[in-house]
């Protein structure tokens, strides 16, 4: 209870994802002493509480379990709770959350990660398709030189900031260790700042990358997820794009937003309901159909679930779909079924006993 209470309160400072990581997807919750920077453990984290609960449940079951069908309901309830706890653990480890922000008339075949970014170097020489080299931000944080057989040059990661302030380069701008020699970043400076977990704030993930060829360094680029456009360069007769963007998950199907409705209660800005009519086209399975996605009515397709998640305030044409891949998404349903069966069985057993006692008396 204390953990949930504190985690909920701290969402104001950390945002939902920050609070989730700190309080519920950790073994111990630490508190950082102001100025000293010492980390003091103050609470058991969600993993620890869940693990203890799980062990306690299993231990209690085996120490008190007595064979016989009269305790079958209790066993089912226990099993359901165990499945629920294991399901949550698996979800926290393996669930992937993406978003698809799509505007009426637009067609997309990919979703974008809510939290993760990627550095991409795209060989865009082919007029029909791109060859994308994707480097996850976890690798960018290590810095150093990145070599890959798909590119005829190396990438030196000079700096990687999980969040940055970006300013125009003016005489008043402060000294910056890293500078872009070309592209949009040539006239900008980036200064590292702490990462934010707040939903209403955006991390400007930024990196300085030098492309090194066998002839020497080609140029240094500032890449940032705030830049709308990729930056371009040519080498050995091929055309490349470089950008830092939200990590993409490409799908073997495409979605077109036909219509987005966003009704509000009359005279207010409070959302009443919102829905997206989409066209799903899958060239592999030859599916081509229209689907209405609305609250509590997601589209489930190829292991992904598309929820109607949000909209952009003031923009009645852009729908935001939450795209979730959760291999253990069935476990809560199984757990609920087991608990319901157990409760029903136990209730019926007691009811029968009650009737028998009443009849006997």
């Amino acid at each position, binding site marked *: 209870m204390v953990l949930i209470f504190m985690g909920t309160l701290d969402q104001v400072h950390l945002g939902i994802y920050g609070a989730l990581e700190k309080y519920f*997807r*950790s073994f111990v919750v630490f508190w950082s002493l102001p100025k000293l920077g010492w980390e003091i453990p103050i609470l058991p984290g969600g*993993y620890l509480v869940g*693990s203890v609960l799980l*062990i306690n449940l299993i231990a209690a079951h085996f120490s008190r379990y007595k064979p016989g069908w009269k305790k079958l309901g209790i066993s089912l309830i226990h099993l359901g709770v165990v499945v629920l706890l294991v399901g949550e*653990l698996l979800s926290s*480890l393996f669930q992937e959350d993406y978003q698809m922000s799509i*505007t*009426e*008339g*637009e067609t997309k075949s*990919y979703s974008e990660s809510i939290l993760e970014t990627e550095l991409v170097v795209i060989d*865009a020489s082919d007029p029909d*398709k*791109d*060859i*994308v*080299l*994707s480097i*996850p931000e976890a*690798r960018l944080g*290590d810095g150093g030189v990145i070599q*890959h057989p798909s590119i005829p040059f190396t990438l030196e990661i000079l700096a990687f900031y999980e969040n940055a*302030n*970006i*300013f*125009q380069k003016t*005489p*008043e701008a*402060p*000294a*910056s*260790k890293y500078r872009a020699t070309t592209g*949009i970043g040539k*006239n*900008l400076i980036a*200064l*590292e*700042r*702490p990462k934010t977990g707040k939903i209403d704030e955006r991390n*400007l993930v930024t990196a300085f990358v030098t492309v090194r060829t066998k002839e020497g360094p080609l140029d240094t680029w500032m890449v940032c997820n705030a*830049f*709308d456009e*990729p*930056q*371009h360069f*040519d080498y050995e007769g091929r055309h490349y*794009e470089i950008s830092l963007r939200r990590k*993409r998950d*490409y799908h073997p199907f495409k979605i077109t937003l*036909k*219509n987005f409705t966003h009704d509000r209660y009359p*005279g207010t800005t409070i959302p009443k309901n919102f829905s997206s009519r989409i066209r799903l086209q899958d060239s592999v399975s030859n599916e081509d159909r229209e689907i209405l996605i609305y609250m509590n009515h997601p589209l489930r397709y190829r292991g992904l679930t598309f929820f109607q998640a949000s909209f*952009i*305030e*003031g*923009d*009645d*044409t*852009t729908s935001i779909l939450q795209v979730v891949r959760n291999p253990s998404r069935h476990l809560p349903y199984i757990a609920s079924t087991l608990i319901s069966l157990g409760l029903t069985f136990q209730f019926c057993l007691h009811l029968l006993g009650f009737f028998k006692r009443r009849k006997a008396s």
Partner: protein
Amino acid sequence: MPAIKRLLFLVAIVLMLSGCKDKSIIVYEAPKDIRTKHPHSEASASTQTNDLSWEKPEAWESTALSSFRKGSFSFTSSSGQKVDISIITFPEKAGGLFENINRWRDQLHLLPLSQDQLSDNTTSINIAGQSATLVEMVSEAAIIEEKFKSRIIAAILPDDQQSWFFKMIGEDTAVLSQKETFISFLTSIKREPPKSEVAQPNQEISYQKPTNWKELPPTPPRQASFQVKEDGDISIIAFPGEVGGNLANINRWREQIGLSPINNEDLPTITETIMMGDSPALIVHIENQESILAAILPQGSKTWFVKFRGPSDIVSSEKATFLQFLQTIHFNPSP
């Protein structure tokens, strides 16, 4: 004991899985993004980001923008009916004129037009020196709260790399009342050079200005700006983090007034530390024909720079006032 070992093993597995982030580099083929279909040079990239500029008509109110919505306004009629005016860009032709007009007709529950009917239902209008298509449609049924008809007046401006959609939608009579304003608005739109996304600082400090200084409107990234006598310029700026360190910034200032850089060992000889409230601030006074007198103050996650630049005689004569001024600066909590 084996049970404890098993438990520890399980905990270790969970720790490994929860602590590891995927660092593997992957290569894959992907369909081209629509916006990158026309490569390739920096020049073409800047053309893609070319923007239009406009003046908001007085009767309209600005509303929230989004990644697609480059302009967003609303109008409320005297009877309380809302009209939404949006300016949206899409890469390329975004489905084309025919598809988009029929999509709007679908929103008004109207039957789609055929290609032959298109020219009879559209007119031409000049926007930012280019020919655009103007279209107007009204619903047959009362589709707003089942009481009012809905009307759309919209213009589509195809550009080299993107299409612009200017759309006014709302209750029939309210939209009609703004038709003339909307048309005038469209014809007043101009083309602007590209801009970059730049963080704007907030006002986070308060201070007592000396009476002989003239306060000027701060231009970002300045938080405050003062003129001292004729040529003395004082700026207050905050940047996150250590911003390159004291030496790098002092050498940058030395370069600005024509002095050679110094080493880390020389730093104590030209700096002193004073207290600003509870925090120590580094004071540096660099003199040449021009002088720079500055305070560097780390405060929270930011570093503040209070910098006085001007002719040496002005900076010297105002040094005491400047140091007194530093003591009046108060840092407001971040919003």
